[in-house]
């Protein structure tokens, strides 16, 4: 039995269903994940990663360390470009190398390179290479790939219907079906935008999404809008952003602002994130030109429950008051 370790961080929130199904469809392969982020994982990452790295990368280091002695391979693909336009943040491009040369005693890393600008079939080829490394048969690989695609398709369909990735993942992989409760009329609706590995990591985001829900606010995130609509969404900053997740966050923020169906926009940014400093500024400009209340919430390794809750409550109250005034006027 070969154990493949997939750290539950970064790309996990976007591609895990596909990866998991693919690996488990190959014979004699078992996927091991590092589970949800915990204090312990974060502490490990913080102590091993470069102090100047962004929080998500530190968290990733922590997840990798959790898997260190438990697996035969680590799966950390080098995803460069998937949409033939934008590339991922430089830290993603150098991710396998950072792990290999920044940490000691690592198991072998499967780091296939995926760049669809060079070849449209790059994704299939990458999976094929991975299959070959694990000595699977050609047919077996193809079948696993198709199944993986199907799982990913289902996952994305749920996202479009308003599910959040952790919930959608559980539904696709474990068949846990639950229907989303319909929003009661008059309820506030917020868009939470940001990188999936920040907003859906319940530990480092201090569970902002569920906190909002408990305050009676329904939440949509940058993972929910239909991909095509996002791709068509324009934003005006002279140039397109080069990094996929940043570009997507900015597009989502513009999409929500333009649609006008949300009462507020919250941008979750990570301490020490390079691209975010620019993204945040552009979202801010855009939200204010659409007169939508906007808050940017920066997350770091010490962000305390209390501080975040207070800020969220204040923001929710402010929006509620504003909405009330508008309805009365």
């Amino acid at each position: 039995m070969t154990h493949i370790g997939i750290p539950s961080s970064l790309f996990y929130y976007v591609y895990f269903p596909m990866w998991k199904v693919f690996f488990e469809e190959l014979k004699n392969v078992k996927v091991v994940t590092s589970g949800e982020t915990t204090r312990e994982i974060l502490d490990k990452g913080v102590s091993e990663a470069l102090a100047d790295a962004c929080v998500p990368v530190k968290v990733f280091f922590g997840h990798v360390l959790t898997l260190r002695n438990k697996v035969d391979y680590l799966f950390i693909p080098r995803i460069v470009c998937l949409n033939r336009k934008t590339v991922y943040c430089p830290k993603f491009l150098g991710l396998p190398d950072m792990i290999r040369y920044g940490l000691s005693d690592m198991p072998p890393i499967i780091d296939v390179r995926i760049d669809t600008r060079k070849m449209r079939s790059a994704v299939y080829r990458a999976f094929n290479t991975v299959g070959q490394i694990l000595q699977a048969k050609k047919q077996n690989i193809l079948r696993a790939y198709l199944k993986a695609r199907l799982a990913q398709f289902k996952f994305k369909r749920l996202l479009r219907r308003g599910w959040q990735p952790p919930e959608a993942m559980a539904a696709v992989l474990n068949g846990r079906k639950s229907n989303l409760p319909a929003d009661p009329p008059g309820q506030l609706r917020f868009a939470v935008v940001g990188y999936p590995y920040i907003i859906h990591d319940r530990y480092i985001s201090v569970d902002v999404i569920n906190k909002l829900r408990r305050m009676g606010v329904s939440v949509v995130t940058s993972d929910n809008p239909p991909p095509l609509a996002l791709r068509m969404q324009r934003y005006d900053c002279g140039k397109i952003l080069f990094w996929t997740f940043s570009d997507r966050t900015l597009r989502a923020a513009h999409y929500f602002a333009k649609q006008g169906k949300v009462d507020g926009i919250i941008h979750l940014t990570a301490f020490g994130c390079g691209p975010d400093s620019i993204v945040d500024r552009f979202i801010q400009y855009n939200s204010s030109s659409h007169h939508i209340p906007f808050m940017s919430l920066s997350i770091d390794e010490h962000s305390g429950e209390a501080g975040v809750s207070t800020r969220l409550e204040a923001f929710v109250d402010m929006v509620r008051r504003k909405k009330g005034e508008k309805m009365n006027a």
Partner: protein
Amino acid sequence: MRKVTFPHVGESYRTFKMLLNDLGNEVILPPRPSRRTLNLGVQHVPEFACLPLKILMGTYLETLERGANVIVTSGGVGPCRAGLYAEVHKKVLHDMGYQVEMIVFEPPRLHPINFIRNVHKLNPARLSIKAIIECIKRAWRKLQALDNVEKATHVIRPKEIRQGDTSRTYKKVLEWIDSAYTMDEIVEAEKAALEELHNIPQDPERMILKVGIVGEIYVLLEPASNLEIEEMLGNMGVEVERSMFLTGWTRDNTWKETVQGMTVKEAAEPYLPELIGGHGRDSIGNTVLYAKRNFDGVIQLAPFTCIPEIVARTILTSVSKDYNIPVLTFFLDEQTGKAGMATRLEAFVDLMKRKKTKIKQNKLLPASSF
């Protein structure tokens, strides 16, 4: 009246002033970045923006105060934030109510039309294409002269007998190059400047440490942004070799032999096969090459939150171990102070000295043998 300004990058402003004047523009010189520049910049750009973005913002505000209304700068296609600087600056400045025109140069090979249009905008003297090319050639030569003189100071400063001689002479000879105008004058001035520098009384016996400098381009090229680290090192008896200059990379003959003509990219390949944007891969490749050339150490300079350099730093831990070459990194931001930097540098220099002595006594193998 249009008044043109541009970013301050080391001594290069001397060249750009000449070029823009030749094309018939009135130029507002960017001041050397200071505390005030940085404070101004910090107020108007996001907290986690990288240092170059903050310094440039401050510089623009200072030149706008002096009446500039056209800013010439470079764009770039990333994949790093630098390519977006101009857009952010434009947004912020317009938001503050400045009516300023931004002329953004993209790499001419990818955007030839943009290049021609921009040159046209900056050519009120309506020079012919031939004349423009002549001006650019002359400007390029001047840039090279400035770089060559700076390189000379890196070698001479650690050996100077009276401390401060090199810096003083450097200041003086820069003015010579500054006032040179024709091609012949520039060549002449460069020659005289180099001679003047080499005439500084030096101590040939001194044990000189050699340190390579790698990192992000702006903080490498603008001494004001790195707290004059090269001068500090020089005063501690360290000869520095910087891996980047505006006119290109150091092409020393010596390394062709010792490193078998290995390129920076090839040297970085085993550690980082991917081009990650910025100069992350160069930092790794150059460190490997410096190690192969038996340098005593490498210093990496990067703005705080600089993405590619953070990747590079993480990987450099291994390079440093594999080649047994000490690497010191400075992540610079508005809080970095000269005193703290000096302390860390002194410790680093001590470490290198001890190592060098051991190698001399054959107790340790040099870096190139790894």
